């Protein structure tokens, strides 16, 4: 395990300097929208707010590969000095370690979400200058001051742009905007996860494939109690799914939250959850980029809800 304070100081310095925990300017890695067609903002439209989470997964994977090698070694203590490097230098190093295939894959999920929202007739728009990292990792790690300052910046910027309705794509950002921002910044946005906006004239036959098994992220399952949303989408499309014993409000954590301070602990928790899911002998579907990347690491056949639904509605 790394010294948590070293990790917190590094992440907080990155957020202060680049508004995200990776030290890479958002313009460098938030590029998915360039291939997503145009967006027109009409009165009453909701802002699609990705929180930069799907785009960040290839960067998180690169960081974790590096941290896994470092954890427990005599070099681990030197991590504390990395915050003294300029964020741009840290960011360039990280960008060099990040795979193009990973970027394409996770950007593709955002393209699919956009396509599904359009097909459902949801009123939404996107603008990269209104899309920020939510600050959730600072909150989770206990950097309350850092989180509040960042959240206030995001809240103020969105209000300046007249945003009142928000569509989110991942549970971490949804939780931050729905529960934490109102508490810590007084924000009053109407926040909905994208799957609650999906409505299709569905082909009645389903996809003729065996059922998938669902992995509920902790934040949707327990904190936000939104596990029914993805199930409603699948039911409406006649796509079959099964649940494992630990699902919904009692879902098991995949271990992802431990990744930043202890990749080894993450692996331990992940192995247990992977075992539970493997017992269902079915492809896994989840709706969180952190869970998705983590379960892939366990070698499970797993895909995002949007990918499954997008393929069916192609």
């Amino acid at each position, binding site marked *: *395990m790394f010294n*948590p304070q070293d990790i917190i100081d590094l992440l907080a310095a990155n957020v202060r300097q680049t508004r995200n925990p990776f030290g890479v300017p958002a313009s460098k890695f938030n590029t998915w929208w360039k291939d997503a067609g145009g967006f027109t903002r009409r009165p009453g439209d909701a802002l699609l707010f990705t929180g930069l989470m799907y785009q960040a997964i290839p960067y998180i994977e690169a960081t974790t590969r590096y941290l896994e090698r470092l954890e427990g070694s005599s070099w681990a203590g030197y991590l504390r000095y990395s915050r003294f490097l300029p964020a741009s230098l840290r960011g360039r190093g990280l960008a060099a370690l990040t795979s193009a295939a990973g970027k394409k894959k996770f950007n593709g999920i955002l393209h699919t979400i956009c396509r599904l929202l359009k097909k459902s007739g949801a009123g939404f728009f996107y603008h990269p200058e209104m899309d920020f990292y939510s600050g959730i990792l600072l909150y*989770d790690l*206990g950097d309350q001051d850092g989180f509040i300052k960042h959240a206030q910046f995001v809240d103020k910027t969105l209000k300046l742009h007249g945003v009142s309705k928000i569509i989110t794509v991942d549970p971490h950002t949804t939780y931050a905007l729905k529960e934490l921002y109102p508490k810590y910044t007084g924000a009053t946005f109407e926040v909905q996860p994208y799957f609650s906006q999906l409505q299709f004239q569905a082909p009645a036959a389903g996809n003729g494939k065996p059922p998938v098994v669902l992995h509920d992220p902790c934040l949707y399952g327990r904190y936000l109690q939104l596990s029914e949303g993805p199930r409603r989408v699948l039911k409406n499309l006649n796509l079959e799914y099964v649940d494992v014993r630990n699902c919904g*409000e009692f879902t098991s*954590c995949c271990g992802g939250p*431990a990744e930043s301070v202890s990749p080894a602990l993450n692996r331990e928790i992940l192995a247990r959850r992977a075992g539970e899911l493997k017992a269902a002998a079915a492809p896994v579907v989840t709706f969180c980029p952190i869970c998705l990347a983590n379960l892939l690491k366990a070698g499970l056949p797993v895909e995002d809800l949007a990918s499954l639904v997008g393929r069916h509605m192609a």
Partner: protein
Amino acid sequence: MALVNPDFAAELKAYGVDTPLECFNCGTCAAICPLLFEHFPRKMIRYVQVGAKEKILQQAEDLWRCLHCGLCTQTCPRQANPGELILGLRRYVVAQARRA
């Protein structure tokens, strides 16, 4: 030997911890916690109740093992909110470190 501080639970209110005295130490949280680790988080809650501040600071790293998965809070029969208590202790420890 550990010094105890009966006002410690009140001190933690500034860090969002306001339910530790609800806990009657049944251990449900430790039983359901995926960490399966040395009576976590029950031990930490007990330290807060008796005000064993030094013990918490000595074992502070354990606080960051918590996944913030919420199972302990979901199953706590006393609504003592163990998950939020651990998060509050992280805030407390970070604030102490920054003050030092």
